[in-house]
Every structure is written in C-alpha cells, then in structure tokens.
C-alpha cells in the first residue's frame, strides 16, 4: 500500500517536473510534424488513399499507426493529455506559492551586498535618514520595507516585477482554457459543403441530405441544425488577362427565424473574406465553377432541361469535367427506365480552343464556352445503393454493356447532337455555381478570448523582470556609507542597465529633480 502510494507520488512528481514538461513539449512539436509532411484525411482523403496505394506495406503501416489522422491519433492525444496534466500539476502549487508571496514582505538585506551580481558602494556627506528618505522616494513603485540593523545601519529591501508571475500564470491558465474551448468546438461544431447553381437556386440548412459533404462534430447527429435558407441569385468573377482570379462576387438572399415562414429575404453580398453570419452559423464562398445546361428533346417531342455542377479540374482555365444525367419521361416501368437513361459526360471549357477535335480552355471567364461530350444511354447504375461519383459515369456499367456510348461531339452554345433514336441534345448555356461552406463552432469566440489572454499573459511574463534591490546605509567616521546590491530573480538579461542607472542615483543619497 505504501509502495503504491510512493509510486503514485513519484509518478506525479516526475510528471510535473519542468524537465518532463520540456520533453513533452518537444514531443508535441515532433508529433505534429508528420501532419505537415504526410497527407491528412481531414484535409484530403483522396490524397491519403493515393499515398497508401503508392507506398504499399509502408503506406498501410503508417495508416495502422494513425499517421494520416495525426491530430486525432492516440499517440498525439496521449502527448497533449500528459502535457495538460503536467501543466495543471505545475500550475497548482505555483498558484499557492504566488498567493503566499503576494502577501510577503521583501526579504531581509543580505549581510554582504558586494557578493551579489550587481552592486555598488559610495560614501556621501548626507545624514543616514536623509539618504533613506531620498532612496524611498526614488524607489517609488517598488514594494519595499525599511529595517534597522543592530549596528545602527538602516536598510531598504525592495522588490518589483510581481506581475511577471501574474502574466506567467495567466498565460498558462489561458492556454488550458483555449484547449478546453477548442475541444468543445470539436464536439459540438460542424461544417458542410454544398454547391448551389447561381440562378436563384436555394439551399436550406435543414438536414444532412441538403449537403454534398458534411463533417459533424463528435456530438452532432445532424438533426438539430440551425434553420436558415439561402438563395444564390448571381455570381460574378473577374479575372486578370493571364487567368488569375481577381474578384468573386455573389449576390445572395437569406432568411432566418420568423422570416422562414414568410417570403421575406435579406440581401447579402457574399465574397471571399466576407462570410454571411446568421443563425449562429457562418456561410462562406469557398469555390465556384460551371454548370452547363442541356435540353434533351425526346423522340416523342417532350423536352427536359437540366444543369448540374461540373468539377473544375484546372482552376487557371476552369476546364471542368462532369456528367449530366436524364431519365426518360413518361416511364413508370423500372426496367424500361433502366434501358433509356441518358448521361452526357465529358469536358467543359469556358473559353474553348480546338486542336482538331481536341478541346481545351485558355481562360477561366465564359468568353466562348463549349463542351466536348460523349452521350451514353442505358442503365446508369445509380440505384445500386452504393455512393456514386457525381462527376463521372459508372464504368462498370459500361464494361457490362448496360450503358452504351451513342454519340460523341464538340458543342458550342446552341449546337445540337442527335442520337440514332432521334433524341436531340442541345447545349443551351453555361450557368455558374458557387461552392458554399456552412460552418458552426459554438466555442470559437471563447477560443479567441483565451488566445488574447494568452498573449497578454505572455507579454507580461516576458517583458516584466522580477528583481530585487537592497540598500544599506551605515554611519561612519568620514560620512555615510551607502551600499547597493541587486539581483534579478528570473532572467539576468536586462537588469544590468536599469541597476546601473538606479544605483548611480541611489549612491549619491540625494533627491534628484527629474
């Protein structure tokens, strides 16, 4: 029993020692490093799978060791939890020590001041009491106490810079607060992405189904999202001649609260660096792209029009790839439907140039849009129950012969392509879509407050020097002997100059008119 207690005590002491904290800090830096060097799932899951495929057993080993989820890994968590405990263990006794010291008087003057790192002495013809009085005035702002010694000498013990430790404690407690607030945000926050076509289409934050992708916090199930709706009316991008984007502007309208049941919409100018903050959520403009609109005229004369976002594969030219699909009209029979689904798949270029029939894009603005498409007919395989990629067709359906290519052509605006069965497909226009992100983090304001407190504490603890100064004034035959000694309690750096200046004044024993 006592052994166990001793073991616990020793572990606790070891954990809270400065040396341990140092090593843990160093480990934290080291442990964070793989996150900067290896692809991370939370940033780009696709890259992670590519990396694992490329690196074989080594890639899989890294995966087992959680190197692609560094900041959620067991070992990284272990480091910061230990550091957290070490910090608490370090700070708690320091708090008591600090509270005790705050009430204490400066320590008694050492016998031999000449042995201190900073010292000086002089003989003046001013009375002892006057020297003490002048020095007290000079040392305003210092905590000090005047004492009498047995041989008639009088001493001043002075100390200042108590705020250093205040800053130090503030910094570390704010750091703890920041970590807690950060963790809280990870539990109750969420982020979701959605593409909305900029032709008056709407998005409502009503559930997970509304999003293209969604990253919930650990305690978020998606049933209680903050309700609001947003309508994207138009999108305007401007580019430099070399294709670099210069500005993005999105005209949106939104409604929240009571407005949701009415037809009242608030206008907002959504731009980069200018998110919409509403209903406890933030809406960001994080991406944009094109959605080519096609009209299909079926053999029976019926038409269907549709536009869906295509994926910009090159942000400099906005060359995009994607797939727009249509179901045949008037078909309730599932087998019949699965024979006549249409997929228009290929490339879109906002400013197209052709090398023979090979299309590419030279500019991201929609100066001369064109598509290079293949039209497939058959079973799209989108009822298989598996998640499918929005931008491509299901190649396995093509391989099985259930989805067959019927035509292939480059189309400019207004041009048509005809299928053998008489179906006509027209490329109407190039619409634009915006990639929106909705973010929710209930504790980020607290994180900011703690970060600012950390900074204040840090500046206090680094700029303020805890220092002591002693003065002994002794009467002697020839006059009054004044001795000064100084000691910086924390870091010596920088006390020298102040001490020299101060002692020069104190050693004269006279009041200075400043």
């Amino acid at each position, binding site marked *: 029993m006592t052994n166990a207690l001793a073991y616990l005590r020793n572990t606790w002491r070891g954990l809270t020692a400065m040396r341990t904290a140092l090593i843990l800090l160093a480990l934290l830096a080291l442990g*964070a490093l793989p996150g900067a060097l290896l692809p991370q799932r939370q940033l780009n899951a696709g890259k992670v799978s590519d990396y694992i495929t490329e690196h074989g057993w080594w890639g899989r080993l890294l995966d087992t060791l959680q190197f692609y989820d560094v900041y959620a890994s067991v070992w990284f968590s272990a480091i910061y939890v230990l550091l957290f405990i070490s910090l608490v263990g370090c700070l708690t006794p320091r708090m008591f020590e600090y509270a005790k010291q705050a009430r204490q008087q400066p320590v008694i003057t050492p016998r031999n001041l000449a042995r201190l790192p900073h010292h000086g002495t002089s003989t003046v013809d001013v009375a002892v009491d006057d020297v003490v009085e002048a020095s007290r005035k000079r040392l305003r702002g210092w905590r000090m106490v005047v004492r009498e010694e047995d041989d008639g000498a009088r001493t001043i013990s002075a100390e200042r810079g108590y705020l250093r430790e205040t800053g130090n404690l503030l910094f570390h407690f704010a750091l703890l607060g920041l970590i807690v607030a950060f963790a809280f945000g990870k539990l109750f926050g969420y982020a979701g992405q959605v593409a909305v076509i900029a032709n008056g289409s709407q998005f409502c934050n009503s559930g997970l189904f509304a999003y293209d992708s969604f990253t919930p916090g650990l305690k978020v199930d998606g049933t209680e999202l903050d309700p609001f709706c947003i309508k994207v009316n138009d999108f305007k991008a401007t580019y430099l001649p070399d294709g670099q984007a210069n500005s993005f502007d999105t005209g949106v309208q939104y409604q929240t609260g009571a407005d949701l049941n009415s037809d009242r919409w608030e206008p907002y100018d959504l731009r980069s*660096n200018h998110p919409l903050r509403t209903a406890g959520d*933030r809406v960001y403009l994080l991406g944009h792209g094109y959605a080519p609109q096609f009209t299909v005229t079926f053999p029976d004369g019926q038409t269907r029009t549709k536009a869906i976002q295509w994926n910009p594969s090159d942000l400099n030219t906005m060359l995009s790839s994607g797939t727009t699909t249509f179901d045949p009209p008037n078909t309730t029979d599932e087998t019949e439907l699965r024979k006549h689904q249409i997929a228009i798949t290929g490339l879109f270029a906002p400013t197209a140039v052709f090398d023979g029939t090979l299309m590419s894009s030279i500019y991201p603005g929609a100066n001369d849009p064109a598509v290079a498409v293949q039209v497939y007919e058959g079973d799209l395989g989108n009822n298989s129950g598996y998640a499918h990629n929005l931008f491509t067709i299901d190649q396995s359906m093509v391989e099985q012969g259930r989805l067959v290519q019927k035509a292939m052509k480059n189309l400019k605006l207004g041009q048509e392509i005809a299928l053998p069965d008489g179906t006509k497909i027209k490329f109407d226009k190039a619409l634009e879509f915006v990639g929106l992100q909705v973010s929710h983090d209930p504790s*980020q304001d607290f*994180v*900011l407050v703690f970060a600012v407190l950390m*900074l204040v504490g840090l500046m206090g603890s680094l700029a303020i020097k805890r220092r002591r100064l002693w003065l002994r004034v002794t009467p002697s035959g020839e006059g009054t002997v004044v001795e000064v000694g100084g000691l910086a309690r924390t870091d010596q*750096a920088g006390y020298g100059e102040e001490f020299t200046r101060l002692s020069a004044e104190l050693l004269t024993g006279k009041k200075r008119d400043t």
Partner: protein
Amino acid sequence: MPVNETLARYSDWSYVSAVVVYVLAMVFYLVEQAMTKTRRQAARELTAVGGGSAEAVEVPAESVVVTRSPRADRFGRMGFSLNVLGVLLHAAAVILRGVATDRVPWGNMYEYGSAVCLFAVVGWLVLAKRFDIRRLSVWVLLPIVVLLFLGGTALYTPAAPVQPALQSYWLAIHVTAVSISSGLLLLPGVASLLYLFRAAYERNGRFAGFAARLPKAEVLDRLAYRVTVVGFPLFTFAIICGAIWAESAWGRFWGWDPKETCAFIAWVIYAVYLHARATAGWRGNRAAVINILGFASMVFNLFFINLVTSGLHSYAGVA
C-alpha cells in the same frame, strides 16, 4: 487594377542594388575582422620576434582579449554605413513594389522573403547601434544575402495583384506581423549558432581563429534571449491574427493546414527554448540548439511548405 510597370522596374533595380551593397558591407566587415587581432596572436607574434622560437605561448581562452586597431574600427564603421545604405535601398525596393501594385508588398514568396530580410536587417541595425556587437554583422548578413539571392533568382515573381482570398486587410496585419517576427527570430538563430562555437572555444579553445573574435558566449546568449522574447510574442500575435483571418476566409480558425502545423511546431519549439533557459541543466548549449531548431523550423516552413507541399497557404506564386 493595373500594375505600374515603371515603378515595378525601379523596385527590381533597387532590390539588386541592395543585395550588392549588402555584399560590399560584408566585405568591409570582413576586413575589419581580419584586421582585428586577438591578444593570443599578438602574444604569439611577440614571442616569435623576441625569442626567435616558433613555439607559441599558451594563453587560456578567458584571457584572450580582442584588440581592435583604429583602422579596423574605421572599416567596421564604413561597413555599417554601407549596411545602412543597403537597408535604405532594400526598403525602397519593398515600398516601390507596394506602390506599383497598390497593395501590401508581401503577397507572394519573393516579396515575403524580401520583407522578412528587410525586418531582420532593420532589427539588427537597431541592436548593433545600441550594443557592442557590430562585429557579428557579417554573420547576420550572410544568411540574409543568401535568402535575398534565392528570392531574386529562383523565387522571383513579377509585380501583380493578389488573388481574391488574399484581398483582405488581414493580409496587412497577419503577414506583416509574421514577417517582422520571422525577421527578428533570424537574429537569435544566428546568435545561438555562434554561441555554440564561442562556448566550445571558451571550454577548450576550439575554433580559436574564428570564435576568439566573437563576443563572449554570455553576450551571445543574452542577445539571443532578448530578441526571442520580443519576436516570440509577436509571432504569437501573428498566429492569432492568422487564425482570425482563416476564420473569415476559409471557414475555420484552425485546420492543421501544413503551414499552420509548421507554425505551431515553430511556436512550440520557441516555447521549449524559453522553458529550457529557465531550467537547470538546459541552459547554455541545449537552449542554443533549441533556438537554432526554432529558426530552422521557420526556414523549413518558408521553403519546404511553400514549395513542396500543397495547402491553403500556397501563395508562393512560383511557377
């Protein structure tokens, strides 16, 4: 927004001139170093002349005093003047870029590197004016000239407006704070590196030819510490500003983007340095090594993260 090509050209010329003048200043500083004799050498020459023997008198390291002739001092002061001229040209290059593009002149890697070096040199000149450390100047200018050379050749980017994500007043606040703090933190990195040589020299006389001319290890240590305690809070401030900006630009204040991660690592390393300096057994060499690692992580963050990995901070503009 069109770029003023004339001013952009003047900025480029000014940049090249600044590098040339820095190199010239280094030459003058080196002449000063060469003309500065340590007393050990002086003693050695004395014995050689007097006794005619080739044996050198062993003088313990602590008693070696650097003596500088007035002529050497003149060269040092000329080097300093050239250094000031260099920084003026350098500042002109940065400011002209800003006027030519009508924005803060640190929007890509070339401009950022230039700004970091500018702040480092300004910081150094202020320090060298206040303390007797001018003779270190050549070692401070060395990495700066290397960085500027790399910037002006491999990383050079013509003047142009920045992309929409960077069009925010936070560019001025966040990147200015980062570049000032990075510039300042270069100085402790150099001082700590020199500390290792000087400390070895003071322990057992190694690196005598070079380290005897350096200030005392204690002075180098204090220099490193003092600049770090200014640079570190500024770096903290810069990271906080970055987080605020990230919140309004990218939808989250912290997302472990490679650049953020690396900034976090550098921040933790400097935190280790500050703690090490207050812990028995970690002062001196260990603390100096940690400070060097801190600076290495800043350089790594600038080059490796910008050029090799891809993240949200990919604004290098290097084709």
